Structures are given as structure tokens and as C-alpha cells.
């Protein structure tokens, strides 16, 4: 057969198989998917000490935040001045002395904002993790590999023996291979298309890397000489363009797949920022009395108002909301650390009583009275002085639903655990942590149906109070960067939101379902 006839023979066969297309069974994709899942489940083999290194920074940041919060709380506690009940209203009927507690500056609470501490963790996991054996990463490392070697006798044998195929030295593999590849590239000048046409193989030159740290000599027939020859033979040709399947494709030596190799992943941390809104049900948990001075107030109050000021602690939640700006870092596949800044508008209803107060000559409800008594900037009624004269007491007590709203800035610090791993679109996270609540303002209805605003220095509320938080979050990953969030949250105050010695206490509770949008960096 002449060469043209031979060429026709090959062309005929090539044309017959060129457009061949046969759909594989569905089970093939299912098996591929299962193997991909297995590989993703394979935990990055980070040595335990590296995990401790990473966790050490996480723990340090958490402790720092906690210490700052506790310090602020302790500092604000130190500035509480005990309220004095014996003062007189400066009107024509009473002579009173007001003891005003020393004004103290609002304790400064330095709280971390957003994720600066978290993001400052040194990325030791990356530096120290075992190098990936997926070689190579750079174009330079995509240098050619030789498959077979011919010894000097001319007989052929496979380049890699079975024993060679199992030698692996993953941590050193990448650097040496890169060096070798760069050396090869420097020795043989090939068009860029040739080098880029190589398929990177996992085992690559594993046998080369298992030799001593210096590169084997070029004269080594088993190692570099063969790749050099292979590249030279290819370089002498005009590399064919890879236009289509029917054309000749430049072939580059490759290494067989080693199924026993472990593919190690380098862990990558994902940082994110999110915004969201959370409609919520907020219960202020106000209890009038409950403290020594609160009880004294109640007792004294009953002297002039037989039907008022019973210790009332009936609260009803009302529609509230929180605006959330949060950030976090995913520490591992299942764990995350999150913080942020929330603005909480908490509305609730306090079922109080309303009576006419002869001293203020106005209707006062019991919540207002309790706040007034507790507020160091307000005038005090000298109950002890006036309480004995019951003729001064007149009251027509009625019940009043008092709208009671609060505004807080919240700084949550919480950890997340993925119940359903975030390897696909949907993931489910459990959240737990604590919330730093910074009091901004309290507004409630007075007995006169006006609004009383409590804020500023000397107010009965702690500047910083704490809540425990727990929740669950569903995440839907729309694409690489954006994720939608749907979360349910519960918060319970740890301790009272009011200062010690006030005539009332507040133990707020919140239950909300929020939605948000996250951007991953």
C-alpha cells in the first residue's frame, strides 16, 4: 500500500469515528458524583498541631472580646450610684432636697467591630499544610513528563516500576518538580503552545523527587535524559495546532494515575460579610420590684396608692426588628466564627396600672414611677415623709397597656456548626454564642399618654448587658460569592438590663426569623 493509500485508510477510519457519540448510562455520573463527594469529604490532613495553632488564635480573639466586654460591664457597674428615695419635689406643696448622684462619664465600652480580629489570624494553616500533590500549579510546572525510558541497550521497559509508582513524597514533591520543570523548560525552548498542551499528572516525576535533594544528572538515563529527549523530539516538529479532534494533537509524555495516592487539600479559609434584617418578637421582661429598693418603693407606693404599684411583671411581646451587619470566617468545613453589629428595635407591651399621683399632679403609671425612682437624674419623691399622711393619697387605679420599646446596639459573637455540610448549594448551621447589648434608648408611654424617653447618663439601664444567643441558619449558595441566608434566632438576657439598686428589672427575650445576603471573599 502506498503512502497515499495508507493515508486514505487512516482518513477513512478517522472520519468513521470522528463524530461518534454514545450516551453513557446514568450510573456513570452517579459513580463520578460519589467519588467527588468522597474526595471532598476527605478531610484536609492538617496535623493536629497546626489545628491547635489556628485554634489558638481563634481562642485568643474570643477571650479578648470577652474580656473587653466584661471589663466594660464591670466598669459601668462601678459607676452606679445608689439611689436615694428621700427627696422632695420642688413645688409649692413640698419642700425637698434632691440628691443627685455624681455624674459620671458614660463608661466607654470598647468593643470590637466587625471582623477585624478574626481576619487578623495568621494563616498558618496554609503555610504549614502539606503541599498538594496535584501537580503542577503553574504553567512552568506543566512541563513535559516522560513516560518511558530506554536504556542504553535499546530494549524498552516501562519507565516507572510498580515500586516506583508507589513512592511518594508529597511535601517535597511540588518544589522539586517545579524546579525540575523549570530546568527542563530552560534547556529546551519550546513554543508556548507545546508546553501548555501538557496535561499535568499527579505522580509526575515522583521517582525523581525521591532521589536526593539535588537534581539527578542529565546523563541519568532513567530520569532527566528521557524527558529531555522527549521534549527535544517534540521541539523539532512544528507543533500542531489543536483545532479539532480530527487533527493530530501534540502528545506529551504522561504518568499513569496512581490511585493509591492521597490527594491532600490545602485548607482555605473563607471570609464573608453579610447584611440582613430580622423581624422579631421582643419581650422586655420588665419586673417592677424584685430588688431591695424596688420593694421599698412598692411598699411606700402603696401608702399613697392602695391600688397601684403592685409588683407587676406582665409583659407581652410586640413586633420588633433587628438590622444586622455581620462578618465571619469559616475555620473548617463545619465550623465558623462570626460577629458583627446589629441594631435592635425591641418593642413590647407592659401591662401596668395607672393612677393619679397627687405629688406630680398627673397620671402616672407604675412603670413610669419605677423608672423615675430609679433614674438618678430625676427628682425623687420622699415617700417616707409623705407616706404617713394618707389623706394626701388619692388614687383611681386603672390598668394600662404601656408600649415599651428599647433600642440596642448588639455585638454578637457566636460559633457556627454545619449540621449539613456546605459542599453543595444548601447547608444548615447551628449557631450559639453571646451577645453584647449596648443600651441606647428606652421609650414608653407615660400615664399621661405621652412618651417618656430614658437615655443618657444616670439612666437606670446598664450601658452594657449580655444575652445568650442560639439559632439555626439555612444557607443557599447562589454562586461562588453570594449566599442567601435564612435564620432563626433566640436571645435570652443573662442578668438584668438595669443597674443594681433600681426599682425594676428587665430580662429581655427575643425570638426572630431573619433573612440576609452574604458575600464571600
Amino acid at each position, binding site marked *: 500500500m502506498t503512502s497515499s493509500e495508507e493515508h486514505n*485508510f487512516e482518513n*477513512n477510519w478517522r472520519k468513521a469515528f470522528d463524530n461518534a457519540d454514545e450516551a453513557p448510562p446514568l450510573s456513570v455520573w452517579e459513580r*463520578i458524583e460519589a467519588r467527588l463527594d468522597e474526595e471532598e469529604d476527605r478531610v484536609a490532613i492538617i496535623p493536629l498541631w497546626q489545628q491547635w495553632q489556628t485554634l489558638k488564635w481563634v481562642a485568643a480573639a474570643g477571650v479578648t472580646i470577652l474580656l473587653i466586654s466584661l471589663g466594660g460591664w464591670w466598669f459601668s457597674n462601678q459607676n452606679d450610684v445608689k439611689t436615694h428615695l428621700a427627696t422632695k419635689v420642688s413645688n409649692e406643696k413640698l419642700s425637698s432636697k434632691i440628691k443627685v448622684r455624681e455624674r459620671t462619664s458614660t463608661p466607654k465600652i470598647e468593643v470590637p467591630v466587625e471582623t477585624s480580629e478574626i481576619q487578623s489570624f495568621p494563616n498558618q494553616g496554609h503555610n504549614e499544610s502539606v503541599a498538594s500533590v*496535584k501537580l503542577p500549579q503553574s504553567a512552568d510546572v506543566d512541563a513535559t513528563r516522560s513516560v518511558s525510558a530506554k536504556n542504553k541497550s535499546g530494549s*524498552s521497559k516501562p519507565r516507572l516500576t510498580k515500586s516506583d509508582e508507589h513512592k511518594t513524597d508529597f511535601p517535597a514533591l511540588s518544589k522539586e518538580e517545579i524546579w525540575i520543570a523549570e530546568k527542563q523548560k530552560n534547556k529546551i525552548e519550546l513554543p508556548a503552545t507545546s508546553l501548555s498542551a501538557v*496535561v499535568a499528572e499527579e505522580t509526575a516525576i515522583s521517582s525523581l523527587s525521591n532521589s536526593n535533594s539535588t537534581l539527578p544528572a542529565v546523563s541519568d538515563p532513567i530520569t532527566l535524559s528521557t524527558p529531555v529527549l522527549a521534549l527535544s523530539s517534540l521541539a523539532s516538529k512544528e507543533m500542531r495546532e*489543536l483545532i479539532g479532534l480530527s487533527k493530530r*494533537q501534540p502528545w506529551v509524555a504522561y504518568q499513569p494515575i496512581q490511585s493509591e495516592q492521597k490527594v491532600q487539600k490545602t485548607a482555605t479559609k473563607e471570609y464573608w460579610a453579610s447584611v440582613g434584617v430580622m423581624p422579631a418578637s421582643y419581650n422586655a421582661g420588665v419586673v417592677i420590684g424584685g430588688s431591695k429598693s424596688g420593694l421599698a418603693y412598692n411598699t411606700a407606693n402603696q401608702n399613697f396608692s392602695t391600688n397601684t404599684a403592685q409588683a407587676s411583671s406582665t409583659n407581652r411581646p410586640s413586633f420588633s426588628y433587628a438590622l444586622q451587619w455581620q462578618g465571619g470566617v469559616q475555620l473548617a468545613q463545619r465550623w465558623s466564627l462570626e460577629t458583627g453589629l446589629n441594631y435592635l428595635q425591641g418593642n413590647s407591651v407592659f401591662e401596668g396600672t395607672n393612677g393619679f399621683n397627687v405629688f406630680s399632679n398627673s397620671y402616672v403609671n407604675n412603670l413610669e414611677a419605677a423608672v423615675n425612682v430609679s433614674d438618678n437624674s430625676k427628682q425623687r419623691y420622699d415617700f417616707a415623709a409623705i407616706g404617713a399622711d394618707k389623706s394626701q393619697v388619692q388614687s383611681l387605679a386603672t390598668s394600662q397597656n404601656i408600649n415599651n420599646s428599647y433600642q440596642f446596639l448588639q455585638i454578637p459573637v457566636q460559633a457556627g456548626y454545619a449540621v449539613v455540610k456546605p459542599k453543595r448549594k444548601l447547608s444548615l448551621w447551628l449557631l450559639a454564642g453571646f451577645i453584647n447589648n449596648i443600651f441606647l434608648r428606652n421609650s414608653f408611654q407615660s400615664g399621661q399618654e405621652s412618651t417618656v424617653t430614658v437615655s443618657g447618663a444616670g439612666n437606670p439601664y446598664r450601658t452594657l448587658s449580655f444575652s445568650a444567643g442560639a439559632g439555626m441558619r439555612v444557607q443557599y449558595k447562589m454562586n461562588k460569592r453570594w449566599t442567601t441566608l435564612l435564620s432563626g434566632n433566640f436571645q435570652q438576657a443573662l442578668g438584668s438590663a438595669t443597674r443594681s439598686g433600681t426599682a425594676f428589672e428587665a430580662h429581655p427575650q427575643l425570638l426572630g426569623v431573619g433573612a440576609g445576603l452574604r458575600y464571600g471573599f
Partner: protein
Amino acid sequence: MKDERTLVEGCRNKDRISQRTLYERFAGRMFAVCQRYTRNRFDAEDVLQDAFVKVFSQIHTFRYDCPLEAWIKRIMINTAISHLRKEKAYLDQADVEDYAEVVSEAETTVSGIEYQHLLSMVRELPPGCQSVFNLYAIEGYQHNEISELLGISEGTSKSQYARAKQLLQAKILETNNTNST
């Protein structure tokens, strides 16, 4: 191309939908390639599965310097040959002179023969001949390249190809004669 880039980027991010899309786009043609290199359908499925797993794990090395299909096809062929190497399919080394018989072109045309019949002809070749035939006649590689790839000598590669051609020509002749009668 833009669509291809989006697909590749999605696969790099281990997005399962992108991976599934890439698989569905190329699986048909690649399965046909795998069938040519293996002896039976089950082996072809195994090779296809192994190769696509490797495609997804190596997708980060794809440099957009060739069509994605060509890159995937190289991985298919690599994987198929690796599969055959495990079976030590290249132990026979025949001399090229044994298979120098010439058959005229007119009697060896493949037109008119069904694809499945042609595929079965290729599959019935001895394993070494099958791979060499695929690499030389279909993929277009030279014998020295094939020898490096398969770990055989260039002479063996030529000899295997000649043997493959002779066997195929005989089968085609037989088929054509059967069809003409």
C-alpha cells in the same frame, strides 16, 4: 468560549451543577473514545468514570490554550491507556515484516459499514494493536510518540499497527463481501 470559561470556573469552584453540565456536554463523545480503547462496555464506563474524576480534579491546570474538548480527550486517552497498562497489554512484540501484506484500497473502504460494527472490529483487535491503531490512525500520533506513551519500542509500535491494519482490512473485506452477496 465565554460559556466554556464560566463552566471551567464553576468546576474549579467545585460547583456540582457546573461539573454535571460539563459532564453532560462531553460524556457522549468521550464515551465513544473510551469504547475504542477498551474491550467492552463495562471497561469503557470505568475508564470514563476515572477520567472524568481526573478532569474535575485537574481542571485547575487547564489554561484555555486549547479547546476544552481536546484537553478532556487527552485525559480520556491517558486514562484508557493507563487502564490497559494495568492489564499488561503490550507484552507481545512482533516484527513488522510479518505484517507487510498489502491490500488494495478499494476493498478496505469503511463507508457503508455501521459505526457499531467498526467499533466491534477495533475491539476485537489484540490489545496492543488496538491502542496503537487508535493512537496512530485515529488520534494521529507518530510511532515514536506512541512508543514513549505506551512504553514500547518504535519498532513494536509499527509492527502492532501493521498487524492491526491487516486484521481490520481482512474484516472489512469480509464484511464488504458479505454485504455485496
